[in-house]
């Protein structure tokens, strides 16, 4: 990287350090970070949840004081004079605080007042911003009644009322539907081009790294690397391949490839299994497998770096399948849902949804925040009564025998629902008891969970001190305590780093092979590829259903011969049937 002169830099940080908490629970959120953000560019701050992105953003915005280090923002010492800095930057926090009981226009007015925008300039500026964000038609709508994507755009507009020189965006695209995500990126680049703004944007989506001019990779509070997106992947050229086998399940090929010593990483990517090879190795000969070279992606580089840094155990389920799948029941519907509807007052969260899931299948529910995934899920688990329609789970009608059905399902909620003040061992014991496991059987299952999920070293650690990945493991172990036939997973991989995500999916695949039916919701479009079948939901209805291949094919067009899941999602949402998708608030 060329060392830019300080005049060309919007931000310089040296030796920045920030920790939280007292000694036994002390967490170094940002540790010895040095940064340089050039003017007039989009710089990405990339890293999984807990990497320290938000802390770093808040330090720059002057909301937190660093323990040590220096910080210069737009030529001003940010630690000595935070007010001057705050007057010249725009900061959009992760959960931008829109006043939900104010209208779009009133929110804009407030920020215009706060930023001191003269009244004479307001009309033009508001028009400009409303046009850019596509909110011009909604000025009288309460902010609380906008869709997730529109809220994010309004938040951005409020931040931009008075054009800042440096714009800080903290995870603006998280949980936002892919269409809005693309629009937000377009706006950011328009700002850089039209107004010469410098942008520092943080994101947990690794694929967004490629959209930045420069990338700073953050992990566990430290900078792992910085440079242009290409500079991260250059050295991987010729080491990434797509493997394909005409018949058989992709995830079996993936599992097989992983056992190869030369394979550093293998994930399912569309019709292929994407493989990252060790240096100076070549694709090995496997029967019926064809290989094609692929362009390395940012995620490949990140995974490789994490592998070198940390010693993640590759744990898989080692016990043989407990339940042999009876060929007669292998393809029966274990979950059948028809015309399922859930209303909350006048609002229809789920609207006449029909689908079925077969035994031993991995079934995905995809959609942006507010699409109705979680509501559907809660009805399937018997946590929420349906307004209309029928649900049968494991052959039991949920309306008449919810308790019976519940004994056969395991549920892992988005927030993991573990007891923070209990140790790992105590959590396991509690859930075992809750499922009615006694003496011998209870001890067996707890021993199994500790062994299978690699929790041995953390047995006596309180849950709130566990790293996120281990929390996820523990939550899954608890959900599997009573050997359920069906496992419900609600956004299980949110915020978990890519390595843990891989380990997680490996475990899911093995469970499916043992005959456990997996039902999963996610807003990571790439994870859809792991599912045998999936439905894409938007505003309470199913837009498409079928295998990942079939869903992707729906978006095939001459311009897009090879669409990925995100393209498919966008194509489906903007299809004629849903032309008013952006307009209707959820």
């Amino acid at each position, binding site marked *: 990287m060329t060392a830019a002169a300080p005049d060309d830099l919007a931000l310089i940080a040296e030796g920045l350090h920030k920790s939280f908490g007292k000694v036994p629970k002390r967490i170094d959120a940002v540790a010895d970070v040095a940064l340089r953000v050039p003017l007039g560019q989009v710089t990405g701050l990339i890293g999984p949840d807990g990497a320290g992105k938000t802390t770093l953003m808040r330090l720059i915005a002057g*909301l937190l*004081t660093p323990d040590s280090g220096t910080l210069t923002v737009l030529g001003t010492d940010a630690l000595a004079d935070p007010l001057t800095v705050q*007057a010249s930057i725009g*900061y959009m*926090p992760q*959960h931008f*605080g829109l006043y939900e009981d104010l209208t779009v226009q009133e929110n804009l007015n*407030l920020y215009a007042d706060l930023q001191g925008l003269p009244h004479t300039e307001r009309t033009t500026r508001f028009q400009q911003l409303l046009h850019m964000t596509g909110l011009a038609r909604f000025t009288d709508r309460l902010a609380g009644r906008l869709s997730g994507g529109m809220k994010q755009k309004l938040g951005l507009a409020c931040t931009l009322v008075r054009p800042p020189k440096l714009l800080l965006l903290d995870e603006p695209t998280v949980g936002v539907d892919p269409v809005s995500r693309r629009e937000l990126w377009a706006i950011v680049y328009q700002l850089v081009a039209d107004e010469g703004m410098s942008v520092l944007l943080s994101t947990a989506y690794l694929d967004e790294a490629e959209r930045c001019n420069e990338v700073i990779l953050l992990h566990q509070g430290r900078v792992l690397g910085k440079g242009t997106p290409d500079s991260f992947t250059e050295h991987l050229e010729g080491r990434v391949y797509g493997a394909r086998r005409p018949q058989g399940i992709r995830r079996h090929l993936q599992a097989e490839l992983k056992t190869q010593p030369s394979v550093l990483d293998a994930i399912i990517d569309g019709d292929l299994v994407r493989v990252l090879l060790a240096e100076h190795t070549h694709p090995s000969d496997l029967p019926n497998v064809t290989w094609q070279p692929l362009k390395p992606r940012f995620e490949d580089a990140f995974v490789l770096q994490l592998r070198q840094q940390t010693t993640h155990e590759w744990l898989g389920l080692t016990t043989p399948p407990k339940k042999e799948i009876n060929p007669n029941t292998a393809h029966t519907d274990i979950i059948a849902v028809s015309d399922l509807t859930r209303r909350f007052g006048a609002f229809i969260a789920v609207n006449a949804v029909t689908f079925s899931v077969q035994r031993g299948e991995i079934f995905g529910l995809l959609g942006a925040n507010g699409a109705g995934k979680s509501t559907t899920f809660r009805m399937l688990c018997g946590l929420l009564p349906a307004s209309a329609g029928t649900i049968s789970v494991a052959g039991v009608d949920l309306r008449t025998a919810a308790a019976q059905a519940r004994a056969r399902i395991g549920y892992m909620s988005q927030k993991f629902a573990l007891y923070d003040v209990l140790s790992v061992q105590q959590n396991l014991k509690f859930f075992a008891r809750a499922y009615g496991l006694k003496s011998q059987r209870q001890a067996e299952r707890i021993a199994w969970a500790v062994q299978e999920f690699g929790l041995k070293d953390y047995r006596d650690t309180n849950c709130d001190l566990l790293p996120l990945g281990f929390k996820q493991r523990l939550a899954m172990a608890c959900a599997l305590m009573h050997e359920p036939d069906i496992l419900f997973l609600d956004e299980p991989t949110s915020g978990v780093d890519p390595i843990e995500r891989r380990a997680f999916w490996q475990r899911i695949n093995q469970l499916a092979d043992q005959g456990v039916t997996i039902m999963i919701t996610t807003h990571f479009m790439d994870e859809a590829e792991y599912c045998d079948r999936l439905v894409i939901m938007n505003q309470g209805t199913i837009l498409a259903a079928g295998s990942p291949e079939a869903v992707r094919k729906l978006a095939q067009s001459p311009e897009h011969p090879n669409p990925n899941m995100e393209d498919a999602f966008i194509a489906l949402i903007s299809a004629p049937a849903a032309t008013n998708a952006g307009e209707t608030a959820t």
Partner: protein
Amino acid sequence: MRLWGLVRKESLQILRDPSSIAIAFLMPVVLLLIFGYGVSLNAKHIPLALVADAPDTQTAALFASFDHSVYFSPKIAPNLPTAEHWLLNRQVDAIVHVPSDFSAQLQNTANQAPVQLIVNGVNANQARLTQAYIQAAWQDWLSARAEAAGQSADQPVTLANRIWFNPELRSRNYLVPGLIAVIMTLIGALLTALVMAREWERGTLEALMVTPVHLNELLLGKLIPYFVLGMGGMALSVAMAVWLFAVPFLGSFWILILTSAIFLLTSLGMGLFISIIARNQFVASLIAIITTFLPAFMLSGFIFDIGSMPGWLQNLTYIVSARYFIVILHTLFLAGDVSSVIWPNTLAMLAIAAFFLGTSRRKIRKSLE
């Protein structure tokens, strides 16, 4: 411009969110109705059993005097066991038992005519009241009887009672002004404590802090709208007190406005202070109720007399601003503008307001730490 923008924002939020309007206007109405009509420290219509072992004209005359009083609703029991049974079942609170030799003893001026009084002492306060009322009624009857016979009652000293400021001893006159202070404490503290905590919870404060907004503007932007709202609630309560409950108002209207404004500042200040410590609405409302509402209720002299509290508790009451305001309100309503009462108490409230507002200003920072 920034301050105006914040005030306008807050006002719009108040108008669209029914809960703050409900706290400011509905709660005073409900509380005043409950306390104004439901709670009374006076005893009226005390159920009473009257037993005469040998009924005759003398006992009938005595019983009739109970019958005419508004304080009693007596009924005649055929015999003592029945009356005792009524007392046990709580059908009556007291028994007036006239023995069979009553009339005979009454004729004989040398002797004293005995009357037995049995009072249910479970509620000690009520029992004392009942006892006093019955004795008074008994006394009245004796004097009336003596006067009728053309002789003065045989009493060396007579006590001539004259009650000032609340001649009818209506407990409502005393409770309602006190209640206004309690309500205003709650409105001021709860509203501000909740709205700041709400801004923390929803993340709106984080975005505000990075704007060039000054902290004074942020605090004033909260204080002004809720001050107006609180004064509105105050006006409503005073109007109800005067017109609905017919509590006399003898003081100056302007002094009432001035002292209410200062008192409201003390509770708004406490609310702000709480909201700076507690960043979620649940904790904020708990702290607000425990540190402002309950002390205003119990330690302000509203119901429980401060003078009869143990010393350490009395010292604690000095920091309860409602204590001062209740004295001022009682004075303004029932006694008029007594400056020697009003000004020292007003100064005490000013000191408390300055303390909380000043501490809030010092504590609040443009930082998330």
